[in-house]
């Protein structure tokens, strides 16, 4: 206990780093994923192709490789993010957006075709019907899969530890090596840190799911 309180500053700031990595990347991925799914179901072939290409590239590339490319590959084309934290957020967002897009697409497919047809009969164009009729219903159906994506993202943030971001996993590496006699305490603290993010999330997801469920 003494040991943990001695290192509480590091553990707390590492926890906040993990949390802000997850939240920032989660929001960016949600926005990007929604734009992507709009492109994927749009009637414009080039947009559809581009979104499909994006999803296949990022869904099928290991996250570590995405990180590696953004950290060490981009300099060769003279591009650079302002800080390493931002680079990590970019890698996590780009990767997770592909999964958000696919989750949303399954939701759109679950919306009965009659809904879009009715919207069209009322004179709404594609964008309007997507925004006001289809997506709101799609989001309600995909709360559980989006919850999965969110929890996976929260744990994926640990990859940033290998790329100069001091998150919980980096704190684990730092403390474990210096305090050989306190390994179990370090592990326990770090696991608790992750659980403090994922367990309330799971609870919140279930709450939202029940609130927004469509009774058919």
């Amino acid at each position, binding site marked *: 206990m003494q040991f943990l309180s001695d290192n509480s500053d590091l553990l707390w700031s590492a926890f906040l780093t993990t949390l802000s990595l997850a939240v920032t990347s989660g929001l960016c991925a949600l926005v990007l994923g929604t734009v992507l799914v709009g492109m994927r179901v749009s009637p414009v072939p080039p947009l559809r192709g581009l979104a499909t290409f994006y999803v296949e590239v990022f869904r099928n590339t290991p996250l570590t490789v995405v990180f590696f490319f953004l950290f060490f590959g981009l300099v060769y084309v003279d591009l650079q993010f302002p800080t390493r934290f931002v680079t990590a957020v970019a890698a996590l967002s780009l990767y997770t957006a592909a999964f958000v897009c696919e989750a949303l697409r399954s939701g759109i497919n679950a919306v009965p075709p009659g809904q879009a047809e009715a919207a069209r009969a009322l004179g709404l164009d594609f964008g309007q019907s997507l925004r006001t009729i289809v997506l709101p219903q799609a989001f309600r159906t995909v709360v559980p899969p989006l919850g999965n994506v969110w929890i996976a993202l929260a744990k994926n943030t640990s990859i940033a*530890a290998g790329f100069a971001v001091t998150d919980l996993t980096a704190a684990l590496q730092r403390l474990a090596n210096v305090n050989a006699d306190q390994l179990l305490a370090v592990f326990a603290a770090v696991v608790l840190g992750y659980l403090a993010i994922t367990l309330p999330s799971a609870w919140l997801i279930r709450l939202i799911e029940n609130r927004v469920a469509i009774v058919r």
Partner: protein
Amino acid sequence: MRITTRYAATLGALGLVLAGCSSEAGQQAEGAAENTAEVAEDVEFPAGTTMAELAEAGSITVGTKYDQPGFGLLNPDGVPEGFDVEIAKIIAGELGIAPEEITWTETVSANREPFIQNGQVDIVVATYTINDTRKQVVDFAGPYYVAGQDIMVAAGNPEGIQGPEDLAGKTVCSVEGSTPAQNIRDNFPEATLVTYDVYSKCADDLANGNVQAVTTDNVILTGLVAGNPEGFELVGNPFTEEPYGIGLPLGDTEFRNFLNDVLEEAYEDGTWAAAWDRTAGAITGEEAPEPPAVDRY
């Protein structure tokens, strides 16, 4: 396309260099094996000691690093080579165990203590710095080598870094959880520290200018400089002492005394220096230093 080609070229070149080093060292080790890593015959130890058990079993499990050029690096045949590996062979030889009877286990910085405590390895020879926290949970024989924290900079030293004081206001890279990183944090807080999980990423960041220096034990930096002599150079001004010891289970004093005796014997009859010359010495091109005095604490 340009990116991929450049990366492929770098990786390829690195692979060649590494392959070159290891096969060379391997051949030399083979040639020298007969007169150095001597295997004692008819060994006898007091019953009930660890030495007697190991000699009886005819095998020993040794934890070492697999990614440290010059100390413990896995060669393409899947056998580790380096100075740590040679030290382990000398010890095994004194127990009457031939090098091919040694079971090698990869240990990384974070798992050395648990591996010793749980008996997954008999000894650890893995650039293992002796310090007081670690002495709480394991025992150390040696030191058999004293490394020191040093600084690697871009070739030509454009920032004029001569020592750790010059790192103030600069960005310096090391590995998360390592002793050198902690030293910078504690004693040179004006330097901005960036920590990756492996040193190769630090080298990448130094090559593309994101950091101005890389710091860790001189022996590790020497391996990185050997991989890219046009790009990097060593400042060559060690500012700490990192005594490398042999880790063994806590409280086994008889075994520790035996290991210390073996080391002192190897210092005297020249096998220690010969082991240095054909491993780490072959990379640095420097002669074997004066062996450190073992610490029978």
